[in-house]
């Protein structure tokens, strides 16, 4: 399908990321944005913009008819959904198809197929990939028996959930009975379907995922794996590629993923998620969107996955110029507007000042710059800092340097916690598991004052006394005079 203009149904760093790839391919872009959501890079970079509804996502980024209208109004013949929002909504993909807009991603049928985790598991089993014990829950009947069959601890999951929502851990029947209505409600609210199932929970597992890509012609590319075990409340914060799993296991996974892909007519980017415990791995689900952490795969393979997605939608070949061999090691840190000292309370406000790191093999995918506003309506992700080096150790060093260069005023960020995590013994030894961060965070809180209170107070007094002299005329030697001229944003 030919197109010259791509609509972007997203915001923040991913919207900007997509615009850049479109521009590299000489395609025009239309940003479909929510009212007031104009203080961001994507708004300034898009060739055209259409406001598609009120700030609340439900009226804008989740509003299928408004998005389609917006794209049609500007004559965009293709649409990239980014991640989150409607990126894995088959109805949205179908609406695009019905309106002759190329949905940049798999077809609506495949989205719907993999969106249902129970069905995806069946395909995985067909390909010979191990899955965890699970039971579908229809009504209250046999709940006890089903749970005992799966065995505790277990996860209650929304069949159509994603993005770390619609899943809860339970340890016994009482908890299970209490949590089921909650998950159903969350599933209905977020995914518009209340089907749920139980799945065995592994408490010493790593979260490993494999990036796959299938070209328009059906060539299958397996682009290695990523270790995304550093997560809090199912939200990843540090990701790296490649994982440090034993080579034998990696080969087995690759082989099975290839088989999985060859069983269907899927096109474009996809991610197979696994839990790995000991020498065993289990399939969790297949994501049909581009993922937040696609960057680390791009860094080690030297590819542009967003560009590949667009080329695939255009029916063109991908990765022609590349020798697809992974090199070196890449780490990504998600910089979020969350205060780790206040249990990761979202922090909103203006970015009064922000300095992003620069340097060899340092990549910053940011959606916001100085003067932009972090709003409470959307996700707290401000930017992603990605580094590459020949070794994992080198990449860790580089990341620490990059984080130290990053200075943000106006809101609180999770940078200090990221810094701590990078220096943590478990991270260095690659022993982080999916539930490690809660513990590490608790430890950090109790002995985490990086500076003595007295020092801070002394610094502060020094600054304060200089401000209190404000009434006096500025003297040329006053070292604080410059502060006084900073304007309020």
């Amino acid at each position, binding site marked *: 399908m030919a197109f010259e203009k791509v609509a972007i149904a997203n915001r923040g760093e991913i919207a900007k990321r997509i615009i850049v790839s479109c521009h590299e391919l000489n395609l025009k872009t239309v940003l479909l944005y929510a009212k007031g959501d104009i203080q961001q890079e994507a708004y300034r970079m898009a060739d055209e913009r259409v406001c598609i509804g009120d700030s609340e996502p439900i009226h804008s980024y989740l509003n299928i008819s408004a998005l389609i209208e917006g794209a049609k109004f500007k004559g965009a013949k293709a649409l990239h959904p980014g991640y989150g929002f409607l990126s894995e909504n088959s109805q949205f993909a179908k609406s695009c198809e019905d309106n002759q807009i190329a949905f940049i991603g798999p077809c609506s049928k495949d989205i719907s197929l993999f969106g249902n985790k129970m069905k995806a598991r069946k395909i995985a089993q067909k390909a010979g990939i191990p899955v965890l014990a699970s039971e579908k829950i229809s009504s209250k009947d046999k709940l006890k028996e089903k749970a005992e069959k799966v065995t505790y601890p277990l996860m209650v999951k929304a069949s159509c959930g994603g*993005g770390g929502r619609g899943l809860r851990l339970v340890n016994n029947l009482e908890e299970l009975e209490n949590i089921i209505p909650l998950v159903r409600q969350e599933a209905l609210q977020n995914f518009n379907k209340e089907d749920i199932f139980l799945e065995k929970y592994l408490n010493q597992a790593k979260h490993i995922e494999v990036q796959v890509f299938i070209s328009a012609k059906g060539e299958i590319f397996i682009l290695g794996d990523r270790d995304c075990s550093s997560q809090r409340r199912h939200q990843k914060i540090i990701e790296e590629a490649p994982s440090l799993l034993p080579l034998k296991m990696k080969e087995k996974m690759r082989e099975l993923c290839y088989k999985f892909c060859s069983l269907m007519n899927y096109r474009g980017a996809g991610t197979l998620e696994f839990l790995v415990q000991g020498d065993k791995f289990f399939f969790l689900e297949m994501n049909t969107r581009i993922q937040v952490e696609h960057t680390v795969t791009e860094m080690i393979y030297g590819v542009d996955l967003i560009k590949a997605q667009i080329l695939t939608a255009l029916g063109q070949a991908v990765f022609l110029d590349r020798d697809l061999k992974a090199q070196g090691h890449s780490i990504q840190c998600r910089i979020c507007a969350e205060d780790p000292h206040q249990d990761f*309370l979202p922090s909103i406000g203006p970015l009064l000042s922000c300095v992003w790191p620069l340097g060899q093999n340092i990549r910053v995918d940011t959606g916001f710059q100085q003067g932009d506003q972090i709003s409470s309506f959307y996700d707290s992700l401000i930017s992603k800092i990605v580094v590459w080096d020949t070794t994992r150790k080198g990449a860790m060093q580089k990341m620490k340097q990059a984080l130290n260069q990053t200075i943000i005023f106006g809101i*609180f960020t999770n940078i200090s916690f990221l810094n701590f995590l990078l220096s943590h013994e478990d991270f260095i030894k690659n022993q982080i598991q999916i539930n490690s961060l809660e513990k590490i965070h608790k430890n950090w809180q109790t002995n985490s004052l990086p500076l003595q209170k007295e020092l*801070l107070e002394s610094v*502060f007094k020094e*600054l304060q006394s200089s401000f209190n002299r404000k009434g006096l005329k500025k003297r040329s030697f006053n070292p604080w005079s410059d502060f006084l001229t*900073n304007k*309020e944003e």
Partner: protein
Amino acid sequence: MQFLEKKWKGQEFRFFVYKTKKGLWLHYKGETWFWKNQGTQFHSIKVSSKKKKELLKAQLPGRIQKIFIQKLQRVKKGQTLLTLSAMKIEYSFKAEGEAVVEDLFCKEGESVSLDQNLIKIKYDE
């Protein structure tokens, strides 16, 4: 943004400072502090006071996800009172000690704005 070097007990520290009318921001190795300007008094919002908060306010705009308590109910330390969802995150308000819920100012599903009163709670002596 300004740069400040400070010697403290034989060690040298480098800070970045940013001043606004509302207060003062300080940055040191990924850590940020903010002192709110209150007259000539500055106050760090990072240093939480020892006193238990009796009036819980929405620390950020969002939606009341779930309320677990009722008016006049007794609560234990650490008990979750309500959850607020914003920015894809669910934030729980917990009791800081044994207490009684004196008043409830919000409903489930309600959108609340910044600093809106949510719960009034009376801690035991």
